[in-house]
């Protein structure tokens, strides 16, 4: 699992799924909010190994394949895209998705979950650091590049003058 998660969010000059402890998040997910996904994992993992052997005869396990081979294996599994109605973007349907979509969602969730939650993901807040989200839950303006020097709202006519 760690090998798959590490290809979805790799470690490079910045931390990836491995450093965020995504596998621990997934372990806990499968006995808490994602018990329905146990079957998807149970049935999906042998499929990954089979795919590894089919694409690269002699490669017995996904985890011993080279990273290029691993990417090719995942690429072949990720062709079926998850269908999510755009109006449900805040509540994607994570049940009953194919194996790769399930692992992808769990990897992203394990990388970016609130590190102060008890989900065991986003260890030390590394996922939030990667996407540029400051740690903490209380902020004061200015927030970003454009509101920093913003003079305040003026009626349109005043601005024209």
């Amino acid at each position, binding site marked *: 699992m760690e090998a798959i998660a590490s290809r979805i969010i790799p470690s490079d000059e910045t931390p990836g799924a491995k450093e965020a402890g995504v596998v621990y998040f997934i372990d806990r997910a499968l006995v808490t909010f994602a018990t329905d996904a146990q079957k998807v994992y149970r049935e999906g993992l042998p499929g990954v190994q089979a795919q590894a052997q089919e694409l690269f005869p002699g490669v017995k396990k996904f985890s011993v394949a080279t990273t290029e081979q691993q*990417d090719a294996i995942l690429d072949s599994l990720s062709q079926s895209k998850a269908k999510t*109605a755009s109006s*449900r973007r805040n509540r994607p349907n994570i049940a009953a998705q194919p194996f790769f979509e399930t692992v*992808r969602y769990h990897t992203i969730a394990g990388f970016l979950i609130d590190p102060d939650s008890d989900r065991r993901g986003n260890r030390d807040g590394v996922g939030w650091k990667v996407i540029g989200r400051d740690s903490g839950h209380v902020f004061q303006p200015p927030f970003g590049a454009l509101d920093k020097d913003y003079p305040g709202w003026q009626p349109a006519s005043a601005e024209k003058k």
Partner: protein
Amino acid sequence: MTADKVQYRPSDEVDFVIIGSGAAGGILAKELSTNGFRVVVLEQGPYLTESDFSHDEIKVLQEDLLTNHPKLQPNTFRKTPDEKAKPQRALVYGRAVGGTSNHFTANFWRFHEIDFVERSKVGVIPGTTFSDWPFTYADLEPYYTKVEWEVGVSGLAGASPFDPPRSKPYPMPPLPTKSNGVLFERAARKLGLNPFPAPMAILSQPRAGRSACVNCGFCLAFGCEVKAKSSSLASMIPLAEKTGRCEIRPNSYVHKIEVDSHGRAVGAVYFDAKKNVHLQKAKAVIVSANGAETPRLLLLSASKQFPDGLANSSGYVGKNLMLNSGGISLGVFDEQLNDYKGFAVSRILHDFYELDAQKVGFYGGGGLDARFDMTPINFAAGGGLPPDAPRWGKKFKDTIAHNFTRTVEIFSHGTSLPLENNSFSLDPDLKDAWGLPALRMTYKDHPDDLKLARWLNQYGLQILDAAGAKQKWTYPIDEQQFAVHLLGTCRLGSDPKTSVINADHRTHDVKNLFLCDGSSFVTSGRGQPTMTIEALAFRAADRITALAKRGDLNA
């Protein structure tokens, strides 16, 4: 505080039992208990407080901490009445004390004058049930002001040239301006439009023992830990309880309104947390259970006397459902905007509130806002990324690392036409965890609603262009299958043949039964219904108080 909380027995005949503690129910509870009446509020969800709220996206969005749970209360969906509906999550609403007001975005636009009289102005739209309201903006204006001052709305009066008249300024200045607000404002002005600070039901200053917004960034869909978001839970429920006359009873799932042989409501029948059944007796019943559950409860209350459902002589209970049309366009900018900090919206515009059907070729109107309302997982798992973005691997990681702090959404919000076929009804097969018939949603947008959404979305793209977006795209506009705004399903009106409640929110058929929530709407407005739901609730409380004081509820 706990010590003075009043508790009634179900056999105590209180003055009012209110079903639902959300945007409308919370206000009615506060107003009626303040006016001296004894009130029991039955809320199907738990009594959570600020310390139960969380920024855990899984707990809130996947485990439905604050909302209806698809396993407990599944529903079905179909597009037209001739189809067999299939199980599919089609709606989200608040299921906790405070209801949907706990987790809303807090856009608090007033309706404009046109919204109440548009049928007269536009004329008949064939195939629709488009109608005027039984009262006007002027009748509701004092109650909009009441919402702003008592519930708490931040904004700037006079900033929009399209604003309807108001009797008082906002009680608080607008929230801080976000970077997406700055670029929206500059781009919209370039295009000759009139952007202005968004009216938001979030405190910009401390008020009534509540904190100002601390800009945590977990706003839409989340509960507020510091009571800055003006939910009923933060603003109204504490005042209702303080009267010593109002009991909020959580985990009480009402499934029937009991009626006597004279056709008068005698109380509400509910399951407690252990699924034991009780009848809470009351002199009058008020249903504020939302635009889905209010009609469902009336349909569940069918009896020999009322075979088609309670208060349904018009046949309109559950019908004329409106969701509001709209779309989303997104852009990525070079600058680090950091719009993940703070509430969602700081700038909106209303230039397109009333479009000329002759010119654009369809009925409708709406508004646009600039926002960033995505939390980290939702952003990265799909909602925030361009359609051609890689979905995993190093390039995916690079994309989320670059885009999360640089993405802007332009939301468009607009009208939905009322159609008789669009409805909530009881599913003939599917049951909820209590064995009750599940909600069945039937919905297919009127073609004009889709045209409007596409038209507004194109404007969103133009604004992103004018703002200098490096990349921009829109979500596809498809027929809607997922509902958040639940409007019109027990509409107001003076004609008992084409409406369910009169201008006092009293059902035409049952004299001591009142309905007040999104179901009361006659037209959809231009999105952002909660402000009007709350104004209706303040007004209904005045009307019901007057009726009760002159003994009209017993007659």
